[in-house]
Structure formats: C-alpha cells, structure tokens
C-alpha cells in the first residue's frame, strides 16, 4: 500500500511536469501561452477546490469570490498603498483565509444543498461589494493592476508567466498530494466517507472541514492575486456566480477526489470555450450538451472514468 500510494505521486508529478515542459513546443504563437497560463491558474484553484469538494465532500458555489478578493486585495494594496506585489499577495491571502475562517464556522455545519446555497450567497455578496464600492475597486468597469515584481525582477510576458504558473501548479499538486496522504488528509477523506464514523475515532470533523475550506480559499486567493498582476486589469466579474460554477464544474468534470482529475478538468474547460468560439451562436448549446453528456455517461468525472476504462481493458483492478 505504501509504495502503491507513493508511486502515483511521483509518477503523476513527473508526467505532469513532462507535459508542462513539452506543451510549449506545440504552441504556434504567444496567444497559446496566454490561454495556457489561464488554464494553469484555473488548475491551481481547482486543485485547492478539489481538496474541499472531492476529498472533504463539501460543496462550495462561492469560490470565485475568494479568487476575486485575492485579485482585488493585490490590486488595491499595490496600486493604492504601494505595497510590493508579493507582500500584497500574502496579505490578501491571509485576509481571505481569515474571512473563510470566520464564515466557515457557521456555514460548514450546513449540508448538501443548504451548504451550496450559503456558499453561493457569500460569493454573491462579495461580488456585489466589489461592484458597488467603486471608490476602492473601480466599480463594474474594474481597475488596472501593475505587473508582478519581486526583488526588482518583473514577471512579464506570457512566456515567463507560463513557466511561473507551471512551476506553481506542480508545487500545488505536490502539496495537495502530500496533504491527502498525511494523517490530516486521511481524516479529511474520512469526513467525506462518514462524519459519524470519523468522529468516534477522534476526528474533530468540524475542524477539518474548516481547515480545508480555509486552505481552498487561500489557494483561490493566491491565484487571484497572480491573475490580477498577469492580466493587468480586473473586473468584479472574475468573482461572479458563473465563475464559481465554472470552477466547480472543472473539478467535477475532471473527476472528484482526484488531484490530477481536477487539473485535467481545469485544462479542458479553459480550452473548450476557445475551441467552441468557432461555433459562434451554437457555442452555449454545445457547451451545455458537453457538460450534460460527460456527467451522464461519466458520473465520476473524466479521469476516474478513463482510468477505470483503461484498467478494465487491461483486466486489472480499478484504481482511479
């Protein structure tokens, strides 16, 4: 078991690193880097969100709100208060973590659709605040953000961002895999399996739900900050309800409780609209049909279903 669990980690990370390293070879122009960076950013958020949804079994329809808070936190702290980007990013993440902690206590007692509603509400409230307080946020039309500079070095251009984001994704995946495979992560998965069963062996389920909620919010916030600097311009819509839904869809479509599944889901759903742009007016229909079809025929998500299929063909045992 020990090696069986560790092997996918090393092999998976290696394979992911390889894909990320080789992918640029197939990019014909700079635009591909831009799309790829967005895919990587989404993937990092989804790795965090998957800890909450896939492993912890708790749904959130408001994570775009945390993403947006990270983005605006960085934007405001750097442009209006002159903080260095890295400090602004960490300060925003800390604030978002605190916020998640504060709202998490009452919210995480809720279950299923009630939890979905509550997180949705929080996301929407954040979105409205960002939209309304235009003296601070520039209102619905958004605000500009300076490039990311650390110690005099500027992260500029999509190519550089690509390598930064790729490295961060690998880091995020590594950390997520570590967490899942630790006693703490086991307790978290146990909470998903059976809260009662976990409680009677000493797992403080409330604490772990809270922990993972905060962690996933911080992931979203950190990426939000990076996104703001990279894009140079943000609007409150990055924190809209639709973005939250999009993030959850990425996780579920790729495969819940599978870190690599979340990455795959993020990649696919970031690229898909780019491909579907060719359908013009039919884009929404095609996207909706793909979402429905995938979930109907692969209810466990892409990666677990594919792994199962592959395992079955080999006649082996399924290990998504």
């Amino acid at each position: 078991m020990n090696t069986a669990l560790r092997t996918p980690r090393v092999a998976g990370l290696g394979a992911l690193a390889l894909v990320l390293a080789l992918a640029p070879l197939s990019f014909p122009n700079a635009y591909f880097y831009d799309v790829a960076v967005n895919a990587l950013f989404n993937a990092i958020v989804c790795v965090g969100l998957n800890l909450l949804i896939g492993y912890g079994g708790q749904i959130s329809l408001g994570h775009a709100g945390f993403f947006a808070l990270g983005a605006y936190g960085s934007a405001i702290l750097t442009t209006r208060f002159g903080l260095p980007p890295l400090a602004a990013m960490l300060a925003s993440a800390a604030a978002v973590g605190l916020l998640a902690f504060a709202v998490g206590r009452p919210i995480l007692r809720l279950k299923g659709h009630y939890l979905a509603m509550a997180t949705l509400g929080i996301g929407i409230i954040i979105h409205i605040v960002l939209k309304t307080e235009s003296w601070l946020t520039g209102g619905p039309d958004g605000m500009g953000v300076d490039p990311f500079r650390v110690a005099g070095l500027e992260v500029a251009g999509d190519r550089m961002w690509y390598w930064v984001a790729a490295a961060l994704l690998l880091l995020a995946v590594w950390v997520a895999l570590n967490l899942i495979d630790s006693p703490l992560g086991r307790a978290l998965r146990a909470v998903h399996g059976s809260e009662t069963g976990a409680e009677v062996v000493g797992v403080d389920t409330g604490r772990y739900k809270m922990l993972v909620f905060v962690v996933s919010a911080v992931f979203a916030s950190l990426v939000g900050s990076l996104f703001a600097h990279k894009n140079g311009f943000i609007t409150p819509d990055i924190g809209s309800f639709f973005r939250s839904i999009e993030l959850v869809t990425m996780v579920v479509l790729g495969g819940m409780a599978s870190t690599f599944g979340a990455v795959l889901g993020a990649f696919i759903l970031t690229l898909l609209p780019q491909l579907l742009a060719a359908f013009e007016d039919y884009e929404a229909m095609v996207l909706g049909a793909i979402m429905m079809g995938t979930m109907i025929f692969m209810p466990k998500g892409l990666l677990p279903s594919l792994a199962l299929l592959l395992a079955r063909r080999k006649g082996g045992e399924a290990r998504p």
Partner: protein
Amino acid sequence: MRAFVKWGVAALAAMTAGLGAGAAPAAEPVKIGAFLSVTGPASFLGEPEKKTLEMYVGRLNKEGGVEGRKIELVIYDDAGAPDKAATFAKRLIQNDGVDLIIGGTTTGTSMAAIKVIEPAAVPFISLAGGIDIVEPVKKWVFKTPHTDRMAAEKVFADMKKRGITKVAMISEDAGFGKSGHDQSLKVAPLYGIEIVADEVYSPKDPDVTAQLTKIKNTPGVQAVFNFGFGQGPAIVTKNFKQIGMSVPFYQSHGVASKKYIELSGDASEGVRLPAAGLVVAEQLPATDPQKPVVTAFKKDYETAFKSEVSTFAGHAYDGLQMALAAIKRAGSTDKAKVRDEIEKTSGYVGTGGLVSMSPTDHMGLSHAAFHMVEIRKGDWLLSD
C-alpha cells in the same frame, strides 16, 4: 496516469487544430478583428454591431475589397465579460494576426482589452461610450460613440434651459449606468444642477418602485434622470408612471432604440433623451450634412435585417468606415501608418455625427452630434 498524459496531448492537439485552422493566410487579405458582446447583458448592442460589420464587409468584398485586397473579418463574442474580451483581443493579435481591431461593445470590455492592445501596438476603434477609453489619450485607441459625459452634459443643458435645478438620478449599477452616473455627478455642478437623490438598480431587477418611491418622497425633485441600457430603463419608465410621478423624465442615449419604446409602451410618452441623428434620420433638416449618411445606412440595415436600426449598429458602421478610409489613405495595413491616418480623420460624416480627430482627441465628436429627442406617440421627435 497514462490516461492523463494521453489526454493532455490530445487536448493540445485538438486546440492546435481548432485554432490553427484560421491562421494560415492565403492571399494577404486585410484582416479586421472584432470582439463584441454578441451575447450577455449587452447583446442588443453587440448583436447589431456584429450584423453591421458582417453586412458591410460582405458587400465590400463583393465590390472587390479595399485597395484590391479582400477583407477578412474575425469576430469573437466576449459575452460582455471583460476578461474574455482581453483574451480575445490577445487571440486576435497573436493568433489571428489582425491588422486592426474594432470592438469592445461595452466600456468594461474595451478597457480590459486596451491593456492588451496598447502594448501590442495595434490600431483599435472602440464602440463603447465610456470617456475613460480616450481620456487620457492612448496612442492606439480610438472610439466612435459619444461619451457618457457628453450625454450627461446634453441632458443637463436641456434641463438648465427649462429651469430645472434639483434632479434625482437613478442608474443601473452595471458598467454603462455606473460610468454614466459618475460622469453625471461630475458635470452636474457645471450646469448649476444639484443631484438631490441618487438611486441604483440591478440590470435584472423586476421592479424598481422601491427606489422610485424614495425619489418621489425626496423634497424638491424637479426632474428624474435615468442612466442605463437594456430592459432596465423600460422598467424604470413603467414604474415611474405607475407610482404617479409627473416631473420631467430624462433618459440617456443608452435607450435610443425602438425597443425601448416598444417595451415601455405608453409610459415612455414625454421622455426626453439625447440621441444621435440616426434615430431621427427623416426628421433631420435637409441642410444637415448627416442626413444622407444616416438615411442611407438606416435603409441598408433595415432592408438587410428587417429590424429597426439602432445607434449601436451605427457605431460599428462608423468604426468600419473610418478604419477603411484610414487604410486607403495609408495605402497599406502598416499598423503605425494606419494609426496615424485614423488620428488624422477629419470631417468624416458618420451616423454619430461629424468626426474630426486630433492627437489630443481620439473621438472627434462635438456636442452638436447629439440631438435632444422626445418620445411622442411612440416615436422619436426631434426637439432641439
């Protein structure tokens, strides 16, 4: 795991195929890119803009194109989302290699795209109203429609003429309304106007009587000014009538389409708003230099699409005409030359008015371009 690798590769391959298809140039056409809000909350602006561009590019190509080169039009739908707009702008520049970009249906999408377009040094003509787009002047950025500030100024001037000094504002809390609201607050004092009540509503609100009631109960309100587009102003208009308010009611140029009258019905009677000559084409005096242009465009559009022309379609028309004129004058699609030529646009008569740009003015419209219009018996009445 292997499945993942396989999929990663497959997805990339698919993406390359999907994107690459349009990237291979054959006979060097003039490439014009556009990102428009064809769907989403601003779709009734973006949709006519798209139709207009397609219609005229199609027609020009039939006539042999420009400078002997065909025009290739690449349009993306940003659904009104600024981040999508920025991404599509990037795609137009880096992937599709366009020579010039038209678009940005809304101020938000335009502003987001400018962040990408300006450093890439591609001429860009925005179709959105926000004054921030061209103020301060950005080297590569131009715009065709009147600004929201001009609309506000036109309205306040009209009010001043009628002796109104205390005004209540009600505006949509999304991009267009918000920006218009801010500009209005800024310029109101210049016309001796005091904003005594200031309410907002969301674009999808089914009812705004609560906000209007608050205004109604504010002492001294002499007129109400609504800044917004879409169905919101129609709901405001209906509710305004419903709660029995009778002070003069002003709208912005955001409602200058027949749809507004259709949606708000009788309640729109007597509403005053600033609008471009296009909506009152027939009523313009024969001496107005705009008259032939707007009547021709109106006829073109309405015969092609069997629907009422809107000012937004006109913005796209103006953008395209100025761009093509600049390309002709430049004799090439060299981006820097084209930019310079756009900046030198002078005396162009468009649907929006007379355009004369300069290095300090990348819009080039004067106040004269706006007409004050009143709604009478379900139609526009020119009432300057």
